[in-house]
């Protein structure tokens, strides 16, 4: 009995520390959960001498879910998203310029909360049903990725531009992986999605109007909720176990399914997808032994064995972390909304850009920095040419397609 109580207390401790780190990774652009998770894996050989590996897994699960609730904040307020929140830039930033940045974040928070409940509902299917069908899916990954790529390309109005952006991103991806850098994804994704929008916001000399933090009305009809739930469940489930397809692709598929054009409903949709993809990837690690996200990879490397009750504990941890992050996100976004107008946005963006460049240089070295510069150029070109930024995910999709190429 005492042992169980002690374990519960330890799990609560891991959950709290995970939330704290999730706040850091969520709010600071460029610090990804993968960076922290990889560091934890690296020092796990020492940590597991004092701590149960399950606690480290709880820490990673808690941090990852908290991150999915909060990572829209820098995307919306600073225009510095990661690959999971990149689609929030347009609707989020335009709401910020209307003085509704706080509301934009709240919509993503409600979406993430919805996503958390969808993860709970889908978990029995992922644990008990999906393993029976996965063998068929596994052998068709190559074709599914080709289909997903073609879908992304042919839905674009300017198909030539779409092909150019997608394949240039693919070239950057292939070259980046051939470098065998430490943290090879950091310079590439930071350049493609983060620094490019920062460069343009510095050049545009944008001024942020006073933000309205008083009223928040959800204002989403039940029919829209049902459409969001249906589309995100389908798209996120597929993207949570297929390699190289992440939240960005899930959002494109889901938004096409719902034909959602309203900004606030689109942000809710994005919020839910982000949380579902991370949540289900951790469950898929247990049921299918696949490592689709950095968090899943890290948990797989930490846990020497993965009994069924571990996954129930991890689902519980994710649920508590998610509920806490919902309230934390509301408080933090209100605070930031009040302060953002007092800060010189140009210098803030410049500061974040310099910080990201130093981070890349520190983590991935001079070659990583070259990749960062090239990726930033392509990111800037994509935004200015009007192509969808999800096409930049060719940087991950093309190398993965080549990896699964049946020979």
């Amino acid at each position, binding site marked *: 009995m005492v042992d169980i109580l002690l374990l519960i207390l330890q799990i609560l401790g891991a959950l709290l520390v995970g939330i704290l780190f999730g706040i850091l990774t969520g709010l600071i652009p460029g610090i990804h959960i993968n960076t922290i998770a990889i560091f934890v894996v690296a020092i796990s050989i020492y940590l597991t001498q004092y701590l149960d590996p399950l606690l480290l897994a709880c820490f990673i699960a808690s941090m990852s879910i908290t991150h999915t609730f909060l990572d829209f904040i820098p995307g919306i307020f600073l225009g510095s998203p990661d690959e999971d929140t990149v689609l929030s830039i347009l609707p989020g930033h335009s709401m910020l310029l209307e003085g509704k940045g706080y509301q934009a974040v709240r919509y993503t928070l409600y979406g993430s909360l919805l996503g958390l409940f969808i993860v709970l509902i889908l978990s029995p299917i992922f644990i008990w049903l999906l393993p029976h069908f996965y063998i068929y899916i596994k052998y068709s990954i190559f074709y599914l990725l080709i289909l997903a790529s073609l879908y992304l390309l042919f839905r674009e109005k300017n198909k030539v531009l779409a092909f150019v952006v997608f394949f240039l991103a693919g070239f950057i991806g292939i*070259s980046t992986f051939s470098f065998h850098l430490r943290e090879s994804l950091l310079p590439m994704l930071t350049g493609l999605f983060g620094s490019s929008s920062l460069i343009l916001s510095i050049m545009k000399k944008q001024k942020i109007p006073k933000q309205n933090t008083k009223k928040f009305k959800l204002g989403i009809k039940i029919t829209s909720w049902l459409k969001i739930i249906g589309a995100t469940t389908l798209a996120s489930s597929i993207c949570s176990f297929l390699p190289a397809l992440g939240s960005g692709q899930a959002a494109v598929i889901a938004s096409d399914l719902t034909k959602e054009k309203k900004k606030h409903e689109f942000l809710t949709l994005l919020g839910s997808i982000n949380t579902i993809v991370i949540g289900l990837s951790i469950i898929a690690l247990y049921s299918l032994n696949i490592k689709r996200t950095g968090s899943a990879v890290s948990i797989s490397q930490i846990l020497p064995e993965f009994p069924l009750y571990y996954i129930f504990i991890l689902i519980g941890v994710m649920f508590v972390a998610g509920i806490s992050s919902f309230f934390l996100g509301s408080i933090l976004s209100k605070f930031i909304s009040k302060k953002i107008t007092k800060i010189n946005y140009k210098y803030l963006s410049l500061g974040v850009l310099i910080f990201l460049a130093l981070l890349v240089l520190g983590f991935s070295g001079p070659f990583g920095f*070259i990749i960062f*510069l*090239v990726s930033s150029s392509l990111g800037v*070109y994509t935004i*200015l040419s009007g192509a969808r930024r999800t096409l930049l995910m060719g940087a991950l999709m093309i190398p993965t397609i080549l990896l699964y190429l049946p020979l």
Partner: protein
Amino acid sequence: MAKKKRKKIKIKGKKKIKFELTTLQLKKISFFLTLVGILIIFLISTFLGPKSIDGCEIEDIREGKYVEISGIITDEIDLAKEFMLFKLENNSCEVDIICTCVRSLEDQHVIVQGKIQSYKGKKQILAEKIENG
């Protein structure tokens, strides 16, 4: 009045150089930089291979570093399905090579490229490429 005059002189004295790019110019520049950059990355990755290491210095190399080592395979063990451990001798030092493959390489001279990783406090190489050489 005097204040106003001083202000005017200040503005007159300031040499403002305006260097503003149009969207089209910036688009062209970013496209050009992307193409040149990809070419540079491609050339660097082609001509800069992984660092060749000595079997005895493996413990001093940081985890995650991509390296190349050559030597003779002295032993091979099947750890699991499609998962093998090779013992490679280089410069009288033995290095563990982990490979997700099914191959018989005993007594052969090979060149291995892979990432350094740690297992139970001992460094080993997770092979990505094994060639006879």
